[in-house]
Structure formats: C-alpha cells, structure tokens
C-alpha cells in the first residue's frame, strides 16, 4: 500500500540525529514492547509480514506521531484483535482508556500470473502496479529499470504472507538502480540496491 511507512526519497526531515554508540532502547517499556511482539510471532499468533503490514495500516497521523516502539505495540494489539485473542472493547477496558489501532486491511494477492525468472545481468523493470495490500516494493522503484546482480533463496511472498494467505515461495533479486534515474535531477550520485520479489519484476526491453 502507498502508506506513510514508505519513506525512501521523501524530503524535508532534516539532519539524522546520530550519536556514536546510539541506544536501541530508551525506556524499559520499549524492551517489553519488542519482547511481546516477538513472543507473539514465536507463538504463531502472526508472522513478521503480518506484523509489518499492521504497522503500515496505522493512519499516517498516528504513524508519524508514534515512536518506533509505539508502532510495534499498535501492530501487536491490532493483530491480537483481528486474530480474535481479544475484542477492542475488552482491550480498552483492560487499558483503562481508548486504544488506537491500525486501520483494516485491504485484500492481499498471490504470485504474479506472468512471473518469470531472471539471471544476473538482466535488465529489469519494476511493474507499474499500485497495490492496496501489503507489498515490499518501495514506491521509489515503481516503474523504474535496474540490473539484476544476484538472486536470493525463495521466500514466502510478502504480499500473500502479510495477509495470512498461501502463495508459492519465490526468490527476491538484488537489483541495482542508479539514484539519478530514480530521482532525475533530484538525487546525489549513488547506486541503490533493492531486494525485489520476482513477482514485482518484468524484463526491460
């Protein structure tokens, strides 16, 4: 989905607040939030793609105002409600107040009908598709062409897995793009490598 999470290339955020040996956690509750969603994944309540998608489904206003671990918590709580572990009303009663959750999901999708495999050196184009469900194609590569560098082992297709659907596992390709092509006259020189599912690609002719 074209959600707020898809940050690559957005402008206006200012300097990175970097420090040496920067912390991972800034409060005890953050460790707990990370642990609890990990426990839910480990226990089979949901998978990592469903977890990511529930973060993406937060309203943009909530996504931007929440810190990283509040997004984790919101995804965890949303999925527990959607999977029937608790109702929203029970959750709000337990919490003693309103409990903001992510928005409902659109439909997922399966492998692309015209999926073909590629070899290193192939020139490929990212299909110009707009997907309302979970997708791991950052918007900045949509419709762009690049060169295949290598192939990964097969993975569950995130577009299906993120919706609890079954699809054939498929490889992702390491595709090299030129920043100047991704953002003409609007980027510094660099090669940008993206791991792209086979279903998202077609041969560039």
């Amino acid at each position: 989905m074209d959600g707020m999470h898809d940050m690559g290339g957005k402008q206006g955020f200012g300097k990175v607040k970097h420090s040496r040996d920067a912390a991972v956690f800034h409060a005890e509750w953050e460790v707990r939030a990370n642990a609890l969603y990990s426990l839910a994944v480990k226990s089979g309540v949901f998978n990592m793609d469903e977890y990511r998608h529930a973060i993406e489904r937060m309203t943009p206003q909530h996504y931007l105002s929440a810190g990283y671990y509040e997004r984790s918590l919101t995804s965890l709580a949303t999925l527990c409600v959607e999977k029937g572990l608790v109702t929203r009303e029970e959750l709000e009663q337990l919490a003693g107040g309103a409990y903001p959750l992510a928005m409902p999901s659109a439909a997922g999708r399966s492998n692309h009908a015209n999926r073909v495999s590629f070899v290193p050196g192939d020139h490929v184009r990212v299909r110009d598709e707009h997907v309302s469900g979970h997708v791991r194609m950052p918007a900045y590569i949509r419709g762009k062409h690049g060169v295949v560098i290598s192939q990964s082992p097969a993975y569950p297709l995130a577009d299906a897995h993120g919706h609890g659907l079954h699809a054939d596992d498929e490889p992702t390709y390491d595709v090299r793009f030129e920043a100047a092509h991704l953002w003409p006259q609007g980027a510094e020189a660099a090669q940008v490598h993206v791991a792209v599912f086979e279903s998202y690609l077609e041969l560039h002719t």
Partner: protein
Amino acid sequence: MNTDPTPIASIEQRLDAIQTVLHRHGMQTAEFIETFDELAHAHWVPANGAGLVARAWTDPAFKQLLMTDGMAAVREAGLSMPVHHRHFVVLENTADIHNVICCTLCSCTAFTLIGLPPDWYKDLAYRSRVVREARTVLHEMGLDLPAQTQIRVWDTTADTRYMVMPQRPSGTDAMTVDQLTALISKDALIGVALI
C-alpha cells in the same frame, strides 16, 4: 450528547493490557521478556559481526566462505540468525566503493550479528534521506568520503540481510583477531563510519 472522546490510555497501560491478553492465552510473558532482554543486550551484539569481519581479514578461506555463502560462515562461527532470514550478504568496502545499509520501509537488520538497530537507523530522517542523498547524510554523520568513491546504498526490503565489511586499517598487521574485532564498531558494520 457526550462528544468528549475517551482519553487515550498511556503507553504503559496499553502495553500492560496486551501483556495480560497474551498471558491469558498461555504465553509465558514475564519469562520471555527477561529472556529477550538478555538476548538483546548480551547476545545480539556487534562483536558478533565484527568477529566475522576480523576473521575474514586474517583468514582468506574464511573470507571466501563469508563472501560466497554468508549463512554458512555464520554457522561455522557458531552464530545464528532467525529462521526468517535465509540469506546473508556481506558488502566489502574497497578503495573505490563504499557500502551503507538501511531499511526505508521499517527497520530490518541482521540484528543477531550487528545488534538491534540504533535509534537513528529507525528514525524517519535516515530512512527517507539515505537512499536519495547518501553523501550528504554520511557527511552530516561525520563520514566524508573522497569525491571519486562510488557509494552503494542497500535497502533491506526483503528478508535478505546485509553487513558491511569495512576496509582493514593500515598498521594492524600484527594484531590478533580479538584486537581487530575490538576496532570494528556497529556504525562501521552499517556503513556510516570507517575504522
């Protein structure tokens, strides 16, 4: 008609509520939080990845394995990755090429090897900017690269995981693997610092 919205529960209250729900469904929440805390702080440390790099610097056969089959090298070193990570790619910096990793969509990293991602890696500024203006971002973070250096940015958009192999500094020929390991920072394994 009461139009006042119910106030939002505090983050701690919301977390307590979901912990109660998981506990009611038979999950050992308190025990797992303790286990996770230990893993995050004591086991998933950048010294793991640094050790792989230091060994590769000193052992050509191991370097060959690390570069061609990262997962096998991780296993051989007695380390591990979570089951959903099926591919581990090491990116070697050279005199001409500098690699840097990011995750524009979220926060994906090879966390068992380089540690969980630092705060700035997960922030919106790094995620939005590093793919589009890498040289400026690195400069702002204190890393100035020669103008002729080719920058490669690796966006972790799938479950392949990356780690940067920094260049070995000169004057370190006499150092042991442990001494070399101690030189290599988490920032260097991400690619936002040199050694």
